[in-house]
């Protein structure tokens, strides 16, 4: 039986007092979020559960949902997203910006909102004005909303973890909506500071489809810098992303039905050369191997240039990078120099195998261990390995390993390349190195959880 309460007779606090109280409450809540988050992170590290970054950010956001927005406020934020190359491009852009001052970055690769928050939580008082964040493709729109980036770097979109990820074309549409929202906000802010800039890969139709509307008509308030970063993997754009009509992919894509076409780039990768505005041309001599990394470098230099960094200074810093989060890092395992490589999806593997061919040149092809898992973060369905041209490994000594070694074994059987199977990765390394006489260097190509497991077992470098 409910009784009606009499109306309150006390006077409500004035709006001014209310606002001060809310702000104080927010500050207190944020402060609590940061302390509790840090405590959770250190306990997570002590109990050996990962780097702790994810935990601190997750808890921080639970206590104070506005934490990301608060901590990002008044900073210069650049966000980098792509299916492949996010971590490397982020590391490159960070190195370029560090030539002029300290930069905050989520360099551990934790790229969801919680990872970005965790990075910011290490600097609650805003000493780092410049930030470069790697952001997961699905999380980009919400992270952008909270961090108001001044720079978007968009590299590529292809199929990846199809059991978790939205379909790739839907991702492109999401990015498009995000950018149009940003443009709308910019138009509303009369006399605002410089509008955000978008640096995008002109050779990826799905990226171009997301960004192109920014250059058309009433929406053209955000400057777009097109970079011809190239694209090996064209299968995810087999039909026009704009009108879905089938189209023939030429080097410069164009749809006969609706006119959607590759835009004119101002930066690009031509062979081993970086080309840029004003006739700029520089030979790339990176420590990181392969075409994909050259493409990442061009994107990073173009992005750094937007932020006022001289191209040569940027290139200098980028060329000194020898490993990214353990990728490309060499470790000695039982007397063998093993280079750890990460490849997570068909596009990434295709680049990795092309890199292997490029490096082999006319020298000895080096042995390779392939490590395949299919846990949640890897994508639980291993069907995608049938899109990888493992035939390109012919001539190398191959050892197949990981939780899904057997699926990979079936794949290689049909690729008609010789291989051995050894499910335990460290043993597989020993097997691969077993027959090596002349050059004790082997490659270990692993997908996501296999890579992180291996790194932690070898001791983080």
């Amino acid at each position: 039986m409910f009784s009606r309460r009499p109306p309150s007779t006390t006077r409500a606090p004035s709006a001014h007092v209310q606002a001060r109280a809310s702000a104080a409450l927010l500050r207190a809540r944020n402060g609590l979020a940061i302390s509790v988050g840090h405590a959770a992170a250190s306990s997570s590290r002590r109990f050996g559960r990962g780097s702790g970054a994810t935990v601190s950010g997750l808890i921080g956001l639970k206590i104070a949902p506005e934490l990301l927005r608060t901590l990002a406020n008044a900073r210069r934020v650049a966000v980098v997203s792509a299916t492949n190359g996010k971590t490397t491009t982020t590391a490159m852009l960070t190195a370029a910006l560090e030539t002029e001052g300290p930069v905050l970055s989520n360099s551990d690769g934790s790229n969801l909102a919680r990872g970005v928050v965790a990075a910011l939580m290490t600097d609650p008082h805003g000493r780092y004005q410049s930030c470069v964040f790697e952001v997961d493709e699905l999380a980009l729109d919400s992270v952008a909303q909270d961090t108001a980036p001044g720079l978007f770097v968009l590299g590529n979109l292809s199929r990846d973890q199809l059991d978790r990820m939205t379909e790739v074309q839907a991702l492109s549409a999401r990015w498009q909506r995000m950018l149009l929202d940003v443009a709308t906000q910019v138009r509303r802010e009369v006399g605002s500071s410089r509008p955000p800039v978008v640096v995008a890969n002109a050779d990826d139709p799905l990226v171009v489809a997301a960004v192109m509307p920014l250059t058309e008509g009433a929406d053209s308030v955000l400057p777009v810098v097109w970079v011809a970063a190239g694209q090996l993997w064209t299968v995810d754009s087999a039909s026009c992303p704009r009108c879905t009509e089938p189209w023939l992919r030429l080097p410069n894509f164009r749809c006969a039905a609706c006119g959607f076409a590759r835009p004119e780039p101002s930066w690009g990768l031509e062979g081993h050369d970086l080309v840029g505005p004003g006739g700029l041309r520089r030979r790339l001599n990176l420590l990181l191997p392969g075409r994909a990394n050259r493409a990442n470098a061009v994107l990073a230099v173009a992005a750094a240039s937007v932020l006022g960094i001289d191209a040569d200074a940027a290139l200098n810093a980028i060329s000194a990078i020898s490993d990214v989060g353990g990728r490309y890092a060499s470790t000695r395992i039982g007397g063998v120099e093993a280079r750890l490589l990460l490849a997570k999806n068909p596009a990434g593997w295709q680049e990795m195998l092309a890199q292997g061919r490029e490096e082999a040149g006319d020298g000895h092809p080096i042995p390779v261990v392939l490590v395949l898992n299919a846990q949640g973060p890897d994508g639980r369905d291993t069907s995608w390995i049938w899109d990888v041209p493992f035939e390109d490994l012919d001539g190398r000594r191959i050892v197949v390993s990981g939780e899904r070694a057997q699926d990979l074994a079936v794949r290689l059987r049909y690729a008609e390349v010789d291989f051995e199977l050894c499910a335990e990765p460290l043993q597989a390394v020993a097997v691969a190195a077993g027959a090596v006489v002349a050059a004790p260097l082997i490659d270990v190509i692993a997908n996501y959880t296999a890579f992180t497991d291996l790194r932690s077992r070898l001791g983080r470098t």
Partner: protein
Amino acid sequence: MSISGGQQPSTSLRIVAVFPDLLGTYGDGGNVRILKQRARWRGIDTEVVAVDVTDPIPTTGDIYVIGGGEDGAQVAAMSALRRPGRGGSALSAAVKGGAQILAVCAGFQMLGESFTDVDGVITEGLGLLDVRTTRLRRRAVGELLAAPAPELGLPTLSGFENHGGCTDVGPDAQPLATVIRGVGNGSSRGRPTEGAMTAGIVATYLHGPVLARNDMLADFLIARATGTELSNFAPLEVPEHQALRAQLGLQR
């Protein structure tokens, strides 16, 4: 590389991959590769023809493979197949002439009377299979295990499903298998079933791709396409398949 196989009269086999770039999102191109290799290992002279969306589909194929794709790709493929002289009638004529079709996921749905996309838009299918696809309330993603129709003479079917479609099998077709674990077709009528088949069509929601996990299904299709029966084929010794199935807890 030596594989022991039974003595077979040498025939030829033409495998047609239908729109592999548009409909190959889930690694289903592997099915074409597996069919090709196994036929060659059996001493059958095998050719693969990849048909692009802008090309007509030949009627001279022996096995047609249609894979899975995203919604947009499925609609684009359907419109390509409906163009005069392009596709649907070629497939129909080929099946009447004894060819086999292996259709996975989007391919499965396209062979039916109609399918519905995520926005509720209904598209007409090719009408070669008596099935109708609407939408599942929740996308079916995960391991799928199914007991094939006994007359096929096949062991348990295993794979990974990833689809938003709910497919109803009508009286003029038959389910391929009954579900042991997973969702399958998703129809709420009767026992949960997976896939559908007729004399010339094997359609399924199994990825893996399906023939990587179920090598005998590949031989079943090759046998039928070359005018014989699976029981006339000696088993191919490919230990990797046996080891994979053993790891999955399945018998040969």
